């Protein structure tokens, strides 16, 4: 044992000393229209990742129009003014690329990875959906069915798949985190075409977008291409004037703007319209698009809420949910480290104690769910066969009490730091990963270079901090206890 301990000591020193030896270099700037651009050159493989992060997630949704942000992610694959329906992904596949997108509570992220000679194609594709995506009835109808199918597959049909929605629903009453990005299907059904169009006009504008590119690129050449496809999009409401020009009839346009569509040139709207048209464009360019961001503060929970969900499952489970601090706070970092003490790796406490030693659960885990506003921390377990779910809950509670009453050991503390370092390098090992990390740091922290400081952030955190946040946030009398029981137990 002594031998092991010594070996561990030698490893642990110098953790942060050499952590940041490899920097991710990048160039960043704003376009006149407010779009933020981040470029990272990495020539090791001839591929490039092109991405846009829109600072809109489910928390920006209207409470009776939930699921919109995620729905838009789907709609954005429907095509655009210059891309026929169903062709968007074919452009990508035909040119050797891959693409995808995802939506969280706080942002929506789109990306393509191409052979590097297709960089311009990627920029064109993303500019098409930013400028004039097909937000129309046909697309809405098609995607509504696809989204419902997705919900069935990912949430309804997945054992315990509804726990996020169920937990957020009970933890949040006022803040829009009370629903999850998938939202409520009836809201999508109830929505009118206008609701969709309004959402597009409000959130899909250059000033709400961050273009992040990483890979085998030439920075100067890339800037020129960006100028071509993105600087040509005017700022402010001018983009919506153009979208209205495309989608409204002459009468509707007249009514809204008191001018005829004839003032404008369809092909070269921003450059070749009549002088009068240009005046209008300039006028609307000066009108800012206001992006609503909720400033609702969720009141603290004041008791332990206990509830049960019946699901198509074989093994009962228990989920404990707590309010957690916003991701940019010091406490959030401490809580993340604490989370790793509890469930990072096979030697973490929940797995060792509850799954392997006591064999009360088939798995036990925790998430520190970092979000822009104060969010959720969850600790959970799925009971082993024939184990009463309450004894599992008690065992988990005991682990929570332990981190509240005792400092974590020096060894565990160092372990977590080592795990963080490893995780950091793994997530930044691909150009796609780097493009996303860079965008995240800009959008969430307004500090792109934080990507190079990420590990240092944890330097000042102490073991006492971990104990403090355990006490502050993992309170027994301010949490949701959610049991998952097999459906048949309800019926029989």
């Amino acid at each position, binding site marked *: 044992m002594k031998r092991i301990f010594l070996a561990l000591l030698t490893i642990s020193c110098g953790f942060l000393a050499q952590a940041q030896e490899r920097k991710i270099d990048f160039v960043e700037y704003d376009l006149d229209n407010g779009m933020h651009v981040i470029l990272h050159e990495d020539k090791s493989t001839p591929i490039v990742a092109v991405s846009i992060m829109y600072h809109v997630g489910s928390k920006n949704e209207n409470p009776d129009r939930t699921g919109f942000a995620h729905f838009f992610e789907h709609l954005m694959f429907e095509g655009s003014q210059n891309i026929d329906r169903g062709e968007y992904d074919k452009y990508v596949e035909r040119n050797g690329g891959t693409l995808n997108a995802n939506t969280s509570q706080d942002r929506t992220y789109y990306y393509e990875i191409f052979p590097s000679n297709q960089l311009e194609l990627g920029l*064109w594709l993303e500019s098409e959906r930013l400028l004039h995506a097909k937000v129309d009835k046909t697309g809405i109808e098609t995607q509504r069915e696809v989204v419902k199918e997705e919900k069935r597959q990912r949430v309804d049909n997945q054992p315990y798949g509804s726990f996020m929605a169920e937990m957020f629903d009970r933890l949040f009453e006022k803040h829009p985190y009370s629903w999850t990005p998938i939202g409520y299907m009836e809201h999508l059904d109830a929505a009118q075409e206008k609701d969709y169009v309004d959402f597009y006009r409000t959130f899909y504008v250059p000033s709400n977008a961050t273009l992040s590119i990483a890979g085998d690129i030439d920075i100067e050449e890339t800037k020129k291409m960006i100028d071509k496809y993105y600087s040509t999009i005017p700022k402010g409401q001018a983009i919506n004037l153009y979208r209205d020009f495309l989608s409204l009839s002459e009468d509707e346009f007249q009514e809204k703007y008191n001018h005829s569509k004839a003032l404008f040139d369809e092909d070269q709207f921003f450059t070749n319209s009549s002088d009068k048209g240009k005046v209008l464009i300039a006028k609307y360019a000066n009108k800012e698009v206001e992006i609503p961001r909720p400033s609702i503060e969720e009141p603290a929970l004041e008791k332990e809420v206990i509830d049960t969900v019946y699901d198509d499952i074989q093994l009962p489970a228990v989920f404990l949910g707590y309010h957690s601090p916003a991701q940019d706070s010091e406490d959030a970092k401490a809580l993340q480290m604490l989370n790793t003490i509890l469930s990072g790796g096979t030697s973490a406490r929940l797995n*060792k104690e509850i799954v392997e030693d006591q064999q009360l659960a088939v798995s036990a885990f925790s998430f520190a769910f970092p979000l822009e506003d104060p969010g959720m921390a969850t600790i959970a377990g799925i009971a082993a066969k024939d*184990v009463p779910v309450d004894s599992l809950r008690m065992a988990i509670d005991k682990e929570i009490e332990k981190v509240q009453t005792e400092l974590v050991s020096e060894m565990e503390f160092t372990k977590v730091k080592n795990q963080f370092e*490893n995780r950091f390098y793994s997530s930044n090992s691909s150009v796609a990963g780097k493009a996303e990390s860079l965008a995240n740091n800009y959008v969430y922290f307004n500090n792109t270079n934080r990507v190079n400081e990420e590990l240092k952030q944890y330097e000042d955190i102490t073991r006492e901090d971990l104990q403090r946040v355990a006490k502050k946030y993992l309170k027994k009398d301010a949490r949701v206890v959610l049991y998952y029981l097999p459906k048949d137990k309800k019926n*029989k």
Partner: protein
Amino acid sequence: MKKLITSIAFVYSALIAFGQIDRSQVPEPGPAPEINIADPEIFNLDNGMKVILSSNHDIPKVSFNLVMGSDPRLEGNKAGLAEFMGDMLLAGTSNRSKDELDQEKDFIGASLGASSSNIYLSCLTKHMDKGLDLMTDVMKNANFPEDEFKRIKKQYESNLLSVKTNPNEMAKNAMYKAIFPDKHPYGEIMTESSLENIKRQDLVKFFKEQFTPAGSYLVIVGDIEREKAEKIANNQFGDWEGGVPFEEEYSMGYKPKGNRVIFVEKQGAVQSVINVAFPLDMTPGHPDQIKMRVLNKLFGGGGFGTRLMQNLREDKAYTYGAYSRLNVNREGSWLSASGSFRNEVTDSAITEFLYEFQRITEAKVNDEELTLNKASLSGSFARNLESPRTIANFALNIFRNNLPSDYYQTYLKKLNAVDKNDVLKTAQEHFTPNNLNIIVVGNTEVLDKIKQFDADGEIEIFDAFGNPSKQKEYRAADIAPQKVLEEHLIAITESRNIRQAKRRIGRIETLKKTVEVEPKGSPMTMTAKQYFAEPNKEFSSMQVSGMEVQKQVFNGEKGISISMNRTGGKDTTYFTDEKIQDKKKTAGIIPELGLMKDTSNFTLLGLDSLNGNDYYVIQYTQGESSTRAFYNTSTFMKEHTEKVEVNGEDVQTISAKYKDFHKHKRVLFAHKITQIIGSTTIESTVKSIEVNVDIEDDKFKVE
């Protein structure tokens, strides 16, 4: 006026940045980038290991993959042995307990993984020595501790249980058994009995044989230089000793004479999993392999632009997705096409699969689909090169499969050269559209519809693990069905004949039953109250700590069920006409009494044995649900029932055991009932039975 001028001036300055751009013009690609696949470094160790090194200093991490050189072995009645050994490899060594191993591995933030034929370590470069210390300890000294053996075995037991409810697993098992039926490692599948045969000693022995340096590969990738890699390989692995690797050749699979339909039952399934598969006479490096890849991609190998997707999803909407998979290995190769389909379209879907198999061998593909699928393949090839692991794996494949050394360097060139004639020729040479295994996992109701696809019209039935099984056969019972139920009534009333039995039951006009219900693993106990009144009124209520969570009432004509929903409100549903008809069949104090009224209500399936006793098995259906009741042949007591309950898409199997019979007003009632629903066990204990007490008519009100 002045205002207008300034604003126009402003406009022009504002627009100056906006050059003309024709957005309808799709950008042209730049010159194709050169794809360089760096040659990894190769060196040998004295003990027979070959080291493959691919250096890359982008991030300060390094990985070591130790790959064994043996061919897979036959496991016979211990099928699953290799997998088990791999799963237990990290469960401890003679130097470290599992806890210590986990602790030390996590401490350096490393990941350490193992299977029956490899050990993989990935860590920060600075923790490399420590990581290798752990890795080589496992490699040399894994000791398979007894308690961990028991724990993992338990895990396998639950996994095997879940195979029986997983149609995709069942289809896969059936496919392996169909293609590799005889003395082939791919055709050996773990079952409950083979798991039972595996002993800890078997794992220890197999580990010793399998993990040996001779013929093995050490693949090093990442932030490390050749000099250091050589030093480490020699220091950490050079002194490792062992026997010779195992070598064996296996048959390349069985091709049926004509199309062959194999069916695996999944009770109550609403979808059929269809898998159409055939063996390929092709090993890695075969001159047609790259053409075959293009063919498979275009046929159904991922993405929307494939034949199977276009036909079965986009055109017919039979499924959410249909795919084909190509597997080319040294030991055996095959192509399979599969998807999940609604019961009603099972036969139509098979027809379309067969049509696509036929079509691809008959006519050339069109230019657009070929271009798209080729581009997609070469794009993913290029993207994969980003991971340094890919390059090292290329080298590993070249050695293991005896490929030409420029195989991957020239891969894209060969891929791009594949044309329409190649695709057709490859399909004609390798596809066997009239010698396919058509595997269907689903509901027996589709059986009749799929017979037509079998060349000799005889469907083979496999069990969940791919072993031939006949549909459950009952031994003939020499007794009239009606007689079984009559004898049962006589038994529970201890009467001399059926008249007396009916009389005795008839004396019970009302019944109040209180039952304590205890689901294992649930935090609560529930109380059920059941009231009956002749002829067929029923009331039942389920309470959790004094609160009624569910209630069901049937008054002989109408029925209602009310249950509490999550928000504390109540969901009310009235019985449908069908349900009322079904309820009438069995409502009342003794369900057999209702059943007996019409002999078409039930069938006698025959004799079956359970735990050493013989039983008459009576089956009756209610809606889509069906129940089998087991009556002891000597006592005629009902000791067991099996019910498949179908509620729309919800299907549940509920088996129940009845014990501890007590007499109430001359009729015997079971006081202990154990139900097993899925993997949960529910114990019900009768707390009280009161006969012929007054029950307020209110209780049976349906409103």
